[in-house]
């Protein structure tokens, strides 16, 4: 009895430590892939920068060619930083939504949260030009942030309210699509009345653009995303309990009302913030958590939150590389690339039907 007990408990400890080691290996490899992609992204653009110069940037040594240094410092580096933060924010939002709705098809773009942010921005940019006579440009960053956040929160609120009554996955999806439709009609109407300059800046914004960001934007996005990520990470235990349904979570002592409000706030904050600066970027939020589940083969949020963040970052950094390398003439919209890469995932998830798990 004593001996078998000792043996089983050692085996158990071995197994647990083995799965930990395995996860660590996975995390390290994914981080290395992200690191390499970041370097490639820094290199890629209308002007190709040699790796040596990028290395110089990271070692803070200005060399013969200052223009490379400035290019990396002032343009490429903030672009990559914002790309990574956007990937993190959208995939964590997607994971949260999939868990709280217990719906593998949920995500900030699919359920219209990004559209909501667009509506906020449209009202601000286009509506502003109509009524207040604000000319053209996208206005101050903070007011843009607030309008996008408010728009995202507005749609998230509708979806949450509906999800209390409608539990069917596909129905919620359809409602998300309808909301996106209504939003795009409102935006069309606004565009019709707005002046040319603001319409142009709005349209460029909707295509998703990581190139326009500066360090000032980074200083706004970074603390918000870090705060959101930490906040969500501290919710992991209760999110795990919520995977098995709301009444189960309740019976396990989760305050589901508070949890819904927290998820609502974090999703609106994260999605609203990155959408304000980069435009509505689709499909990362839905795809990244699924890839994370698939690679790590787990439902545990303590693993899934960092894993989805890294994979979301990889996803958008590679999209960014593609937007800069497919054509030499300017850049392609990021949104188009993420859609081409991400939409097949949604088709795959729908095809899996009942087998899809969250």
């Amino acid at each position, binding site marked *: 009895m004593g001996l078998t007990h000792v043996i*089983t*408990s050692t085996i*158990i400890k071995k197994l*647990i430590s083995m799965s930990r080691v395995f996860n660590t290996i996975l995390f390290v490899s994914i981080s290395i892939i992200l690191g390499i992609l970041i370097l490639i992204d820094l290199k890629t653009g209308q002007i190709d920068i040699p790796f040596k110069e990028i290395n110089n940037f990271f070692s803070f040594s200005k060399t013969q060619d200052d223009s490379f240094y400035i290019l990396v410092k002032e343009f490429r580096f903030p672009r990559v930083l914002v790309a990574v933060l956007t990937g993190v924010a959208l995939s964590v939002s997607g994971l949260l939504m999939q868990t709280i709705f*217990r719906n593998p098809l949920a995500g900030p773009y699919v359920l219209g949260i990004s559209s909501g942010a667009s509506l906020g921005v449209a009202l601000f940019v286009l509506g502003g030009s109509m009524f207040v006579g604000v000319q053209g440009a996208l206005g101050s960053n903070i007011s843009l942030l607030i309008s996008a956040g408010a728009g995202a929160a507005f749609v998230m609120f509708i979806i949450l309210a509906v999800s209390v009554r409608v539990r069917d996955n596909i129905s919620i999806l359809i409602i998300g699509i309808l909301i996106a439709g209504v939003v795009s009609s409102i935006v069309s109407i606004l565009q019709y009345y707005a002046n040319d300059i603001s319409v142009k800046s709005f349209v460029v914004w909707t295509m998703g653009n990581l190139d326009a960001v500066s360090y000032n934007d980074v200083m706004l996005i970074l603390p918000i995303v870090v705060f959101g990520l930490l906040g969500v990470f*501290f919710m*992991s*235990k209760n999110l*795990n*309990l919520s*995977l*098995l*349904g709301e*009444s*189960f979570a*309740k*019976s*396990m*002592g*989760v*305050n589901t009302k508070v949890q819904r409000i927290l998820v609502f706030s974090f999703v609106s904050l994260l999605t609203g913030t990155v959408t304000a600066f980069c435009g509505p970027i689709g499909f990362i939020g839905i795809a990244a958590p699924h890839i994370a*589940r698939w690679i790590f*083969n*787990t*439902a*545990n949020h*303590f693993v899934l939150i960092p894993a989805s963040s890294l994979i979301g970052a990889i996803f958008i950094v590679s999209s960014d590389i593609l937007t800069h390398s497919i054509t030499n003439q300017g850049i392609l919209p990021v949104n188009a690339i993420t859609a081409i890469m991400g939409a097949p995932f949604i088709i795959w998830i729908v095809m899996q039907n*009942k*087998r*899809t*798990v*969250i």
Partner: protein
Amino acid sequence: MSGLLQIENLLIGYDKALTNHINLTANAGDIICVVGRNGTGKSTLLNTLAGVIKPIEGNCYIKGKEINKIKHTERSSVISYVTSRLDYLSNFKIFDLVAIGRSPYTNIFDKRSEKDIEIIHQYLKDFEISYLKDKPLYSVSDGERQRAMICRAFVQETPVILLDEPTAFLDYYSKNKLLQKLSELAIIDKKCIVFSSHDLEIAFKFVSKIWLFDKNNVGQFELEDLKSGNILETAMSFKFNQTSSHEF
């Protein structure tokens, strides 16, 4: 004089009350079967006791404390609950599912102690599901999932355990085995187990008391009381002598 689980003048339901006022008592070591036709409110009663829904009127007390006034985080260390709904699909491993039972006792990062892990393995063995521990939840059968959920409730180590139709997805052998296990745990570990079931023949072999939903009234009966009268026959169209010939 109050029991471990005390129900006083309780009205249950979502908008409208489903029954008349309910007054029931359960003690440590009791294994109670909740019996009634479909839709009479058995699940609603269990949901109310588990604190998932609020009562319309009246109170339930555990160890003298009102259930809805116990803090969320504390409640899960007093009552564990197994719902009858099995619609969740997740790639939770069975081990992790059962391990959820320890979550009332772990910190915010869900760090389990060696003792926690020992308890989990002990119950996995008790419920004969050790072989499932590395399988993801979506890949096991309904019956296996049901047993894992019940195992989780025991891992929670609460004085009161509520089970909504625990035998629903099980085969005949497993039904017997499960109820036998439940009654052992009730007697040995002095737990108070309340479960609803439609498998009356099997359930009545193991239970000590019955809570019967008869039209709008809920009453508490000893098994012997039911055997002598025709209460069950009028409420459920159930006759005892049909089953007395079975032996296991």
